[in-house]
């Protein structure tokens, strides 16, 4: 090869098409927005049924998670996600998909070493750093309240 790694890297970059942002961003906005609207609709529904704010919110999350798990099981969530990207990744439904899909995939390796060990394969970092951040927040809150 006559080219250096840097020169080759530049050639490869030139020949590698970029993500079509004009398609992916509106897709993420519309589908992500629809998921949020569904959440709002559920919240209003549960509130109008007489539930208090906390219970209605919790039940909304639970319903969205259940719906996402169901769609993942039917192999539909990933088809929607193909067009939605962050629109399906960021809402709570994305988290449910990230947990349910390895659970389904690794069932063939058994319930302990397959489902049990690999269920948080994708969602694991969110849980680890989410818990770490909340602990840190707790410590900061404790110190600022004590002062």
């Amino acid at each position, binding site marked *: *090869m006559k080219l250096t790694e840097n020169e080759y890297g530049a050639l*490869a970059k030139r020949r590698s098409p970029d993500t079509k942002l004009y398609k992916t961003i509106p897709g993420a906005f519309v589908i992500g927005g629809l998921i949020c609207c569904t959440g709002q609709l559920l919240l209003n529904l549960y509130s109008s049924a007489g539930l208090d704010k906390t219970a209605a919110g919790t039940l909304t999350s639970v319903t969205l998670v259940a719906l996402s798990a169901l769609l993942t099981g039917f192999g539909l969530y*990933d088809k929607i*996600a193909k067009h939605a990207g962050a629109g399906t*990744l960021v809402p709570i439904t994305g988290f449910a998909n990230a947990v349910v*899909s390895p659970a389904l995939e690794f069932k063939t390796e058994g319930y302990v070493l397959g489902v049990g060990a690999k269920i948080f*394969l994708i969602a694991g970092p969110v849980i680890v750093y989410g818990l770490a951040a909340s602990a840190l927040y707790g410590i900061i809150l404790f110190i600022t309240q004590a002062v």
Partner: protein
Amino acid sequence: MSSYLKNGTVTTDTLPSIVSYGTAVGRMEGDGPLGSCFDYVSEDSCFGENTWEKAESRLQQHAFEQALLRGSIAESDISFVFAGDLLNQCTGSAYSMRNNGLRFIGLYGACSTMAESLAMAAMFIDNGIGEYCAALTSSHFCSAERQFRFPETYGGQRPPTAQWTATASGCAIIGDHSAPPYIRSVTVGTIIDMGIKDANNMGAAMAPAAYDTLRTHFSNTGTCPDDYDLILTGDLGSVGSEILRDLFLQDGISLGERYNDCGLLIFDREKQDVHAGGSGCGCSASVLCGHILGRIRSGELKNVLFAATGALMSPTLVQQGESIPGISHAVHISAESV
């Protein structure tokens, strides 16, 4: 007896023939532009099995059986099987061959394995080792996805440079018969790493290896691209193919119409959602065995230079920040004996 020219190029003496070949693919490949070329198309992506790994082994068995059937060759007449796939420890091939009692040589060259196994089988036959040797590889989209990327139902997006692992298998049986297609020479490649770290851009990682092997082959054999009807890489996809053309253009050589890539042939990139094209050990194997060998046998194609390419990475090494080494082996397959 085979002669070693230099720098990895070996020419055959007795002109080993590809006496038979067979292919098996999944539904998506069957729906692709080469669908009618394949011997066995399964509507069931599980191939009647309950795990993706077993499905891949079954797929490989189908290709092997089709090759035996086409050549009216008894399984017991196969002296050695050179087989490979993408799965850890080469289990797709090992489990497909575990019950037939054949002499088994497992190979791993990632997506270059078909050229590797073809070269090995040809050199064995050329040197009088065995009556028939089978060169056999496979890949399955679902078994590859769960090993290299994400679970099948995970909602992720693929970048435009990503390639789609073909659910496909191809088998070529090499023997000492005086009928085309003949294997005239092979060039074993070296590992080339130009620092590409993006596992979603395998074409860019492998193109330099294809360039190096092809250039070495031309130089060692005193040939040029014009001497071949078809130069077929597998599987650089759209990105890698364009880069390969660019690299040759820098040498003042235009590959032109005679150049194609198995990853571009197996799927319709406009209609099928495969981004930069197909990949996987089975992609080049099924395209070669399903679409090319028959055309060499009939004389439609005289000289084909088949250069399968492989990205020799693992998810672990990529996560550790390592770049992706590529390899390519070239096999000159010809309808002519001189």
